[in-house]
C-alpha cells in the first residue's frame, strides 16, 4: 500500500499545494485503496492489484485542468528576435559601408550585400506579424 501512496504523491506533485488539492488527493488515495482491497478479494496478489489500480487511473491532466493548473505557455520571443535582427543587420551593413568607403570609394558595391542582409530582419518582421 506504501507503493500506492507514493504513486498518488507522484501524480499530484506538479499541482500547487492547496486545501482543495489535499482533499482530492486524500479522496483519490482512499478510493484506490478500496479498489485494491476489492481486487485482492477477487483473488489478485497485492502487487497485481496495485498495478491494475494504477493503470486504470488514467491521465492526471484532466484533474489538473479542473483544478485550474495553468499549462506553461511558451513566451512569445518574436519581437525580441525582430529587434536582434534589426540591430544585427545594421551593424553588418555599417561594416560593409565602412569597408567600401575606406578601401574602394570609386565603386559603390555595398548595396549588393545590403540587399542580401536585409532578408534577415524582413523574415523576422514577417514572423513577428504572423505571431500576433
Amino acid at each position, binding site marked *: 500500500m506504501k507503493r500506492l501512496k507514493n504513486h498518488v504523491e507522484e501524480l499530484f506533485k506538479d499541482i500547487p499545494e492547496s486545501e482543495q488539492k489535499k482533499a482530492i488527493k486524500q479522496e483519490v488515495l482512499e*478510493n484506490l485503496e478500496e479498489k485494491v482491497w*476489492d481486487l485482492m478479494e477477487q483473488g489478485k496478489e497485492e502487487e497485481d492489484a496495485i498495478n491494475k489500480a494504477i493503470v486504470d487511473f488514467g491521465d492526471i491532466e484532466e484533474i489538473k485542468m479542473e483544478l485550474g493548473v495553468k499549462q506553461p505557455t511558451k513566451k512569445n520571443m518574436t519581437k525580441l528576435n525582430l529587434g536582434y535582427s534589426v540591430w544585427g543587420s545594421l551593424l553588418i551593413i555599417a561594416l560593409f559601408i565602412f569597408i567600401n568607403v575606406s578601401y574602394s570609394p570609386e565603386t559603390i558595391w555595398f548595396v549588393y550585400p545590403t540587399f542580401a542582409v536585409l532578408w534577415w530582419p524582413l523574415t523576422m518582421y514577417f514572423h513577428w506579424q504572423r505571431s500576433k
Partner: protein
Amino acid sequence: MIRSDIIRGHLDSIILRLILEEDRYGYEISKEISLRTDNRFQIKEATLYAVFQRLEKKELIEAYIGNVSQGGKRKYYKITLLGKAYLKELVEEWNEVKEIIDLFMEGLK
C-alpha cells in the same frame, strides 16, 4: 471496449443519474458503471474526479464526509436541487439527440 470519446460528453449525465439514485462515493460510482454496463464501459478514475470537481464547482452536486454507519468516513456526493433540474434538461436533450441521430443511423446494415 467502446470508444470513450463518444461517451465522454455524457459523463455528467451518467454520474448525476447515479448520485440521484442515492448518495455515493467515488469508487462506488466507478464500480457501479462497470457493473451496469457489464464492463463494456469503464471510467478512468482521473476522469471521474475531474467530473466531480466540475460538477461541484457548478453546484450540481455537494460533497460531505459520510459517517461510520454508512461504511467508513468516505467522501460522499449528493445531488443538489440545481443538479436535479440540470439532469432533467440533459435527459430531454439526449432524447432529442437520439431521435435526430436515429434518423440517419437506423435501417442501415
